[in-house]
């Protein structure tokens, strides 16, 4: 009797330990990565030098002893592809594959429900992981982007959202960060919060938000 009580207590203690673990320690639950989805994020940081469009027809060196007349040449490359079905179908999809934001350095902007992530499966237990593919730039860390997710159909944002910083896969020992565990179909909305340090020079920067599903 005492032996059985100890055994039960041990099991309950282990269960409590598992439930109490933070999400980032979900490695023990990882099975097999089935597929990934990526969202390209382009951030145009103001002041953007590329926005200052020069007049290409202006003659260089005005007043110089000689001018070179302007000349133009043009050539094209054909680009082609054949889109075929994804073997994982709609298992993991996103509402968009591209986000473009224009934001001034030194500001923080919230982008509510920037995109949806959808899981379409009958699998009873799956785990969703996320992370950024790369820093935006050495001067613009991926950790400057934060996220919070919540059920997206219909969107039910939390009253007091708790944002998590995006971990950058190569900076995180090539590990993803846990998003959530679920069962069957799921549709989540993701809010983004982007805080661009004032020191980031104007220009265009990009990264990819990656979602991976395991079961």
């Amino acid at each position, binding site marked *: 009797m005492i032996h059985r009580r100890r055994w039960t207590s041990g099991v309950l203690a282990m269960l409590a330990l598992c439930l109490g673990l933070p999400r980032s320690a979900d490695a023990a639950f990882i099975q097999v990565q089935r597929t990934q989805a990526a969202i390209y994020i382009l951030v145009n940081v103001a002041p953007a030098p590329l926005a200052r*469009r020069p007049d290409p027809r202006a003659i260089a060196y005005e007043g110089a002893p000689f001018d070179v007349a302007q000349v*133009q040449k043009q050539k094209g490359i054909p680009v082609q592809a054949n889109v*075929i079905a994804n073997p994982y179908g709609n298992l993991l999809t996103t509402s968009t594959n591209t986000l473009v934001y224009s934001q001034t350095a030194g500001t923080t902007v919230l982008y509510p429900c920037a995109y949806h992530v959808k899981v379409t499966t009958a699998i009873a237990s799956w785990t969703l992981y996320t992370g950024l593919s790369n820093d935006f730039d050495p001067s613009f860390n991926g950790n400057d982007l934060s996220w919070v997710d919540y059920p997206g159909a219909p969107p039910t944002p939390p009253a007091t959202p708790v944002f998590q910083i995006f971990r950058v896969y190569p900076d995180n020992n090539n590990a993803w960060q846990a998003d959530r565990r679920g069962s069957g179909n799921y549709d989540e909305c993701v809010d983004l919060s982007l805080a661009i340090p004032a020191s980031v020079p104007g220009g265009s920067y990009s990264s990819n938000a990656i979602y991976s599903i395991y079961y």
Partner: protein
Amino acid sequence: MMSKANRTIVALGFAAALGLLPALAQAAPTTVNGSATAHWKVQPTLKFTLTPNYASGFGTVKAVFGAQPAPAPGGGAAFGAGAVDFGNVQAGTNYLYKYAAHLNVISNAPGFNVYGEGTADFTGTGANTGSILPINQTIFFLKSTDGVTPDSNTGYSPAQPFSATGAAGATYNNPAITYTTYPMPLFMSPMGAGDLYYDYQLKVNSGANLGTYFVYVTYTVVTT
């Protein structure tokens, strides 16, 4: 023998000539100072070559983390020629195309701008006619190497989207773009000559219709 009349004429001629000499001698030292402004335009020279699939190892690489798969271009690509052909690509998947385009510019100008745009969006062809993938969400470019120095890009490396041109009259299956206003340049060179090397990326939306897609990416080099 010279006649008397002739001798007279010759003598008068000499006299006249001698009489003028002092006048000529006085005119020679006179100098008029002034300035002239010369302006001319140098005949422009611009040689622009565009080479697809410019280095060994060109082709499509599926975006993955870790060890990279071997490049595998589609059948429309050939070394130094043909199309940037991604071949079969899965919906909802990202790809890199290595060594897609090499631009070589030689001119006598002090600099040049490079403009690069799609002639349209990525346009469905054949049985897929009517399908459209916005090029600025589908085809991207990023700097590459000359191929001698290895290219470490992946399908997730930072990249910039191509835009579909706003110039009237351009179509997906014709490389010509007639500009009345140039778009934002991809590159501005402070020198009259240079080489640019680009990889491309393809990000296929998960909702993309299945089938073939085609577009021209047109580069326009303008001396400055």
